[in-house]
């Protein structure tokens, strides 16, 4: 992976938005699935986890990008991991001081942000080759995309599994909660269902595209 100076890309809207939709870390690249499934049984946990990851992602991308000319190639992965672990330790203590309840709900999964492949992937594939500004914008986009994905799952699972969103009752009291959705299997099912939906939309779009092209070719 040779780093050429002319590979640096200019900041554009795409640098930010592709993390949200085109290269969404969860729904498209299937990275960092462990926290996605483990802590999304309530919306609150999902938001907290998303923000914590966003912070670590942006901070570590910034530092990796700043140090990209200093870190020797042979030990780069180890250096990235140490950088990430430092920020995760900070977040760990931060959440503990803000809300002990939240800290206990997330448990070991805050510290497990260290091994979230999204973060190491960004450091290795993007931040280590780009200017600081570009790296920050891209990391922000990825972090927001990750948080949105967590929200998708968190809201669905809490709504179906407990009938609430952020603790507010949505369905009437006649609603029988679908307990399995907040249990581990529900995580797999909900993520699978979202992936199915996105795949279906994608295929529909492609079919339409083919149809339009076919008609155009026929006409000419």
């Amino acid at each position, binding site marked *: 992976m040779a780093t050429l100076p002319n590979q640096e890309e200019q900041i554009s809207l795409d640098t930010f938005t592709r993390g949200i939709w085109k290269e969404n870390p969860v729904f498209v690249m*299937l*990275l960092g*699935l*462990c*926290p996605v*499934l*483990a802590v999304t049984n309530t919306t609150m946990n999902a938001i907290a986890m998303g923000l914590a990851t966003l912070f670590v992602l942006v901070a570590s991308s910034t530092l990796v990008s700043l140090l990209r000319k200093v870190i020797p190639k042979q030990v780069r*992965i*180890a250096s990235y*991991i*140490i950088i990430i*672990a*430092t920020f*995760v*330790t900070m977040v*760990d*203590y931060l959440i503990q001081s803000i809300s002990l309840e939240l800290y206990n709900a997330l*448990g*070991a999964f805050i*510290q*497990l942000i*260290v*091994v979230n*492949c999204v973060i*190491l992937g960004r450091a290795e594939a993007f931040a280590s080759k780009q200017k600081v500004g570009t790296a920050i914008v891209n990391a922000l986009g990825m972090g927001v995309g990750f948080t949105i994905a967590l929200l998708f799952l968190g809201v669905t699972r809490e709504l179906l599994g407990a009938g609430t969103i952020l603790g507010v009752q949505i369905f009437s009291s006649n609603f029988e909660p679908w307990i*399995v959705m907040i*249990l*581990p*299997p*529900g*995580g*797999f*099912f909900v*993520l*699978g*269902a979202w*992936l*199915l939906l996105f*795949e*279906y939309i994608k*295929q529909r779009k492609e079919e339409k595209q083919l149809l339009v092209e076919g008609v155009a070719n026929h006409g000419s």
Partner: protein
Amino acid sequence: MDPDSLAFIFINAALSNNFVLALFLGLCPFLGVSAKKETAWNMGLATMFVMLVSSVSAFGINWLLKEFDIEFLRLICYIAVIASAVQLVEMIVKKFSPSLFRALGIFLPLITTNCAILGLALFQTFREYDFMQSLAFSVGAGVGFTIALMLMAGLREKLELSKVPTVSQGAAMSLMLAGLLSLAFMGFAGLGSSHV
């Protein structure tokens, strides 16, 4: 059963609180290397070995950190030790079985970022297991990981031969399968307390 007994810790880690299917740890190799039974088996063994090594080292490190009262360095030390353990396994595998080395490919170095390993080290610290309990816990977790991986590989080999709608091919299908497996593993909940 006494929740501190070795047998209970082993069964709890292997079945009722299976690392992959109940705690969602180590999903990347679970979805990535589960296409063939043979690779799944070898991956399971490699992971089990790394788990054992890092569990023992984590126990030692934790004692050392407590002695010097610098526990905030725990995360950084753990991850450094795990990375070295993986490097060791990689060297051993490359030396003794080059074909296996090629089959595991990128997933071998990626054991470093397997949350199951770090999760194991963190859980045993949080639960304050002693040395023997840590050993039972790590072997149990390794066995559980291998079981889950093998089950998934068997299912996916069968799926190769069956007709699946194009929409659900790939990741979505694997996740649904994992969900069903996870549902089945919930049946083991009676073997112990199901809370983490």
